[in-house]
């Protein structure tokens, strides 16, 4: 059906299509926005070093917490493992644990580790002063490297928690990508 104002109709359609496209891009723009929002508000702070407060180093010697270490890789030919499976420490007591990573491939690769914790609320009580996960790691072909993570579990951890797990997963960064910040 031909209408007198079909030109106006087509113009309107174009406007609406552009709007649709903008909203599609907006969906993707929500991803960096979400990350920025979490960073600014301090939610989900996994990859920032914490500052050791000297005055607040009370150690709860009454109890022990078993910390289990876990390591995974995702989609890259690296071998990644902690040098100790677990550690028994007092809350408030700083500890350094070494991880070893080996690039089994014949090319230089860049990767970064992302931590996850169990129980999930451990991130509120875990302070990391140093961690290989803060930066990207560049490994030459067949390079083997040992890297530390230094942390303290604060005495504020609920007393019914006796075992916690800290897990790292290495994944590949594309060439030239900057460090993932969360």
């Amino acid at each position: 059906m031909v209408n007198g104002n079909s030109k106006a109709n087509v113009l309107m359609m174009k406007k609406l299509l552009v709007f649709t496209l903008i909203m599609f891009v907006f969906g993707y723009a929500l991803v960096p926005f979400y990350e920025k929002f979490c960073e600014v508000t301090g939610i989900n702070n996994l990859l920032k070093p914490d500052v050791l407060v000297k005055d607040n180093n009370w150690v709860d010697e009454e109890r022990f917490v078993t910390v289990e270490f876990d390591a995974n890789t995702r989609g890259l030919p690296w071998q990644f493992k902690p040098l100790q499976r677990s550690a028994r420490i007092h809350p408030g007591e700083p500890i350094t644990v070494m991880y070893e990573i080996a690039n089994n491939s014949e090319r230089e690769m860049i990767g970064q580790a992302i931590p996850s914790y169990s129980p999930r609320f451990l991130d509120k009580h875990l302070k990391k002063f140093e961690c290989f996960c803060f930066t990207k790691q560049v490994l030459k072909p067949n390079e083997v490297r040992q890297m530390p993570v230094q942390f303290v579990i604060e005495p504020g951890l609920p007393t019914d928690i006796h075992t916690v797990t800290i897990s790292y997963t290495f994944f590949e960064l594309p060439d030239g990508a900057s460090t993932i910040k969360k």
Partner: protein
Amino acid sequence: MAAVHGDAHGHEHDDHHPSGIMRWITTTNHKDIGTMYLWFSFAMFLTGGTLALGIRAELFQPGIQILQPELFNQFTTLHGLIMVFGAIMPAFVGFANWQVPLMIGAPDMAFARMNNWSFWLLIPAATLLVSSFFVPGGAAAGGWTFYPPLSTQGGLGVDLMIFAVHILGASSIMGSINIITTILNMRAPGMTLMKMPMFVWTWLITAYLLVLVMPVLAGTVTMLLTDRHFGTSFFNAAGGGDPVMFQHIFWFFGHPEVYIMILPSFGIVSEVIPTFSRKPLFGYSSMVYATASIAILSCVVWAHHMFTAGMPTVGQLFFMYATMLIAVPTGVKVFNWTATMWRGSMTFETPMLFAIGFIFLFVIGGFSGVICAIVPIDIQVQDTYYVIAHFHYVLVSGSLFALFAGAYYWIPKWTGRMYNETLGKTHFWLSMFFFNLTFFVQHFLGLAGMPRRIPDYNLQFADFNMISSIGAFGFGLTQLLFLYVMINCIRSGEKAPQKPWDGATTLEWTHLPTPAPYHSFEKPPVVQ
């Protein structure tokens, strides 16, 4: 179409219409397309309903009898997806196709060919959804909200679902563009925006909501797809992504979607109530403003679906307050409908019964919604049958009842024949009874702690589940009566006069013969 009279027949000759199946495949007529949308959505409604009956049959007794847990999960997932994207939304688009041009005095939709396309896209999408049951690994089983990590781990069925959602989204967007352009550019002379019938207004706002959020959904499922197959890590925590972010983006689409499914039904009810009360709609302008208000507010409340997903208290309070404020414009609407009926000369034909049933039950669903909006309560009832009861009260006795009201109200204009009033009323009362039997008891189940999406349950839930299952089968069978009433009406109903309803005032009743001719308003009517 043997019974078509000379006038319409002449038209068919003029336009060289293909006959038989090709007529329907190639048609660009808004009435044909509207009819196809409605039949399609009814077929999908029966498909989704069959899945629901499978779920209820399994839940009839505790223990696993009929569906293994994997298949049960596929049933709940596909029931939700088919009902939301295959039944309710296309049904409203079908109503828009039929009614928007008739109500604003336009000859057809603005882009007739695109209209045809947006309908026929639905068929492959529905085929993808339904056939996903038969691929290795079965259909998607992670719930209709397809949260990762389940949706990034599932098999081929999830891919089919993702493509189906893509296609359905494209269809909806094209449909909305068509509707917006038609409403804004093709109104008859004198039909100013503020004279438009309420149904047209609600659809205009709904269509804007659709082009606002449907592309976001398309983006979300694209991210899922690339996470699954192209190594991206939008939602994979191990790769630096965040599964909670999926929930945020999904519900940024999902909550306006809820209003996409209810605003057009507000429109239908706002047409039916004044007609059968023989009074103009009380507070027309308030209704328009309230609709706009609901649409805007719906965009800032999404996270009330995720109170238990991990959120700071400040966030929880914000979304709780914003959600509760939506009750204000919704309350204005309910007040206006009631005030329209006040001192009207009411009669209770089937459309009116469904409209009143809508108001009554939708208010119950609205109130349980306000209860769910309260954070401490929501943490208790999250993912229980209380939530199931809540959204079936707004989607079944809300959207679906309004669709029935609209179908009974306009079928005389569409077919030129009256439906059987006794059977129509029977359909209403049976639906009303069985609906409440099915879903009211689910409030109790939810408060007692029965979780959703689980095929088995504790013995203490047995009685209410049995009642609910009996109600569900009754409700399902009742809808076959609706099918019979409609077919009976199309084939052998009594001839309907031009204006079978006393109080009808919109253009399709006052300016067009019954049945509405194949080409209507080729010369636009003049609206005073």
